[in-house]
């Protein structure tokens, strides 16, 4: 009997202990949960995959207590959006977007460049080879380099594809971009093109009036413009060469595709090429913190592990990674090791005139 009652007692104690442990556990879990912050913000489409990466989410959640609720929006669209209440941050892709934000709302709580990627042109082997023959593109080692002054001149002269020997393509030579008034990659390509039209110098307040009609004519050829870089890139991939022979985008988009969708990339590899404009412009992915919560996100995103993932998985060149790319492990031919011929974007006042002409 004594034996049995002792046993019962132990069982009772065991249950009690378990309940206590559970309660304590629950308490701490609740504490932890209460500390988790949900941050809401607009993000340029090209960074969605990075933020959706489970590894990135884990680091943000475990070490920083953040859960992100993001909506995709064009860089220029988001800084002009009228529903910024309740948002903690904006993550556009350029200095111009930041300056536009500042002109509308004043200085943000904090802003910081998280990583960079150059503007490149995506096309197909057939087009790249044809443009090499036409003298607009040059292949040095494995890399295609676009002679930007020549390309812009040809577009300005209303050249047809067939004039350049590309008989399989219908219509006029054109580079499809996103809407320069709404999305950053298109905006930057318009800035770059404006520089070329300003005699290959920086377009500014003095020469922009002369440049604008030519710039508008070049962009009018592409008609409706997408508002997101990722949509444009996906359309480029899925709708074939006849639809969008050349598109402007970010270098990271293809690098990321090769990692995230290896099957698709395997099928596309022989045909799809990166061409680097010479000169080109750098897109800086600047995070704009709208409040203290957003400012804490800036710190988090500078975490070395996140910066490493940003380069290795998503192809963003960062301060720490991606500067020397000779040893990169992307299965992508023709990635430039170093991009030296860079031109500045026109200043904000000039860009504002360009944006105005497109809206």
């Amino acid at each position, binding site marked *: 009997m004594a034996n049995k009652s002792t046993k019962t007692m132990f069982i009772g104690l065991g249950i009690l202990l378990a309940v206590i442990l559970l309660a304590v556990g629950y308490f701490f879990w609740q504490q932890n949960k209460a500390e988790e912050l949900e941050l809401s913000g607009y993000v340029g489409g090209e960074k969605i995959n990075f933020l959706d990466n489970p590894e990135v989410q884990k680091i943000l959640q475990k070490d920083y207590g953040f859960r992100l609720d993001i909506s995709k929006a064009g860089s220029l669209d988001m800084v002009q959006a009228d529903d910024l209440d309740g948002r903690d941050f904006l993550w556009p892709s350029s200095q111009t977007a930041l300056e536009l934000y500042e002109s509308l709302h004043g200085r943000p709580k904090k802003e910081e460049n998280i990583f960079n990627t150059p503007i490149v042109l995506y096309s197909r082997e057939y087009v790249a080879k044809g443009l090499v023959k036409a003298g607009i593109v040059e292949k040095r080692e494995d890399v295609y380099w676009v002679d930007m002054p020549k390309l812009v001149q040809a577009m300005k002269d209303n050249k047809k594809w067939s004039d350049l020997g590309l008989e399989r393509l219908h219509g006029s030579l054109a580079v499809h971009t996103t809407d320069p008034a709404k999305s950053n990659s298109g905006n930057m390509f318009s800035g770059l093109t404006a520089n070329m039209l300003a005699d290959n110098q920086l377009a500014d307040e003095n020469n922009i009036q002369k440049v604008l009609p030519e710039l508008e004519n070049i962009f009018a050829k592409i008609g409706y413009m997408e508002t997101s870089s990722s949509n444009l890139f996906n359309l480029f991939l899925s*709708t074939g060469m006849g639809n969008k022979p050349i598109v402007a985008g970010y270098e990271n988009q293809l690098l990321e595709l090769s990692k995230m969708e290896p099957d698709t990339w395997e*099928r596309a590899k022989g045909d799809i090429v990166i061409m680097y404009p010479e000169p080109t412009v750098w897109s800086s992915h600047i995070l704009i913190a709208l409040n203290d919560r957003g400012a804490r996100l800036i710190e988090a995103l500078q975490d070395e592990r996140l910066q490493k993932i940003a380069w290795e998985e998503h192809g963003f060149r960062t301060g720490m990674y991606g500067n020397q790319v000779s040893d990169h492990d992307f299965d992508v031919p023709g990635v430039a090791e170093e991009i030296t011929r860079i031109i500045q974007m026109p200043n904000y006042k000039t860009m504002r005139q360009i944006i105005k002409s497109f809206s």
Partner: protein
Amino acid sequence: MKTPGKFKRLALILALFSFLISAVSCSPFLNRFNEKPDGADSFFAGKSKNDTVRIVSGSENKVLEPIIEDFTKKSGIGVSITYMGSLDIMRLLEADTIPYDAVWPASGLWISVGDQKHRIKHQASTSTTPVIFGIKKSVAEELGFTNGKDVYVKDILKAIQDEKLRFTMTSATQSNSGASAYIGFLYALLGSPEHISVEDLHKTDLQNQVRSLLAGVERSSGSSNWLKDLYLAGDYDAMVNYEALIIDANVRLEEEGREPMYAVYPVDGMMIADSPLGFVSDNGEKNRDEKTAEENFQKLQDYLLTPEAQERIEASGRRTGLNEVNPKFDKVFRQDWGIRKDALISTINMPRQDVLFEALNLYQREFKKPGFNIFVLDFSGSMQGSGYDELIEALGELMIDEKAKANFLQTSDEEINFFIPFATDVQPFLQAKGNAELEALYEKIKAYTPNGGTALYEALDEALAIMEEADLSAYSPSIVLMTDGQPNGDMNFKDFNRRYLDLNKDIPVFTILFGQAKEDEMGRIAQVSRAKVFDGKENLTRAFRSVRGYN
């Protein structure tokens, strides 16, 4: 000391039971609604409507329903789909409240134009298919479109203008394929310029040409899959539609021993639909569990993008991946039907948004063949209350110019509308030409009080009599019966059927139903006249707009 053993067994049995119960309750009880003979405009797979992903989709995705059903079987997550034209989806995105979890239009263009509030997330293309011409093979041969030479849009337009080709297309202001065809026509008629400007659209020469071209449209439709059904039900020479639906139609045509269509891809281009599926965040519904909805949505999207599902989608005649066709599907993408397998399909550049919208407004107001519509309105006693209210509200969407304009449903100056109110007796008809007269009639119609019996066939007979006397050659005629009630006059369906066949004119008789209507009988009216029955009980206005897409 056998007790513990007993308990163990009992516990085991209980566990087994609960497992069985949960297994049974998890297994999806598949159900399909709305499989009416006239072609469903919605779809549902799952157990209950509570835990469902609600999609609003272009009708071209109807063919993918079996794949969705398999997803439901595997995941236990229900899926409901409401079909409407892509431009209607665009307009839906502009609303504060969107009663859906996901959108699936034919082209991402309509999301980027409509989603001004940036509520669409996780947007990804599920497949692509170009908009092309399907032309009855013998006709295509006669016109010289099958010998491998380049065909331009203007060549096809010439055949239409010379009355060698009678073709159908969807409404350019409701459906993506129609919009894309229409814009393609504009480029061709303007002599393939670099781009189209608003000024171009107002050139008299262009306007005359577009008008005469659209006068050659035999019948229009609000959405692409309905157009395919219409083609199958009728005897037309050609349609502008998605490659995927032309393949689908050809399979059916061959099964029925009829002549298939030959696919013609104009070299100056139409458009490629990229079928993007996107999640609607912040959809404005108060009681929505967005997190669960988003998780369920992502499971569905992930499923559709698995290699297995993608292969099944490709087997249905859509292109996946990089727009090239896997040789495995040579028997789907048949060369003898003119289907091309390469990825080099040229497309037009959609005009800038302001030009596009101006073009769409002109289509509705100026270009399309003016409608000759007879609305047969039920004011019998049972319409009192909500039936009357809904009817009046819906008519407002059409008759009040400001509202109609917002939906691209304006009445052109040439359009003629008749209204035949009826109850126990058929009332004298009301008539309006153009939108000013139409708007003026609205108050008069509002003044009718529902009362008495339902002389439905008598009223239809009156409508057919008006049609018989009218010269319809320059119009797109339709009859729209708006009723809730069971006919109880002296005439019956047989009388209608005889009269309709004697008349021998291609006039659709649509029905918009409310209340306790006799669906079978209205279905027969629609079948005879190759039209549709719409359910106005849930959203009469939308049904009404769908009807309008046909003219």
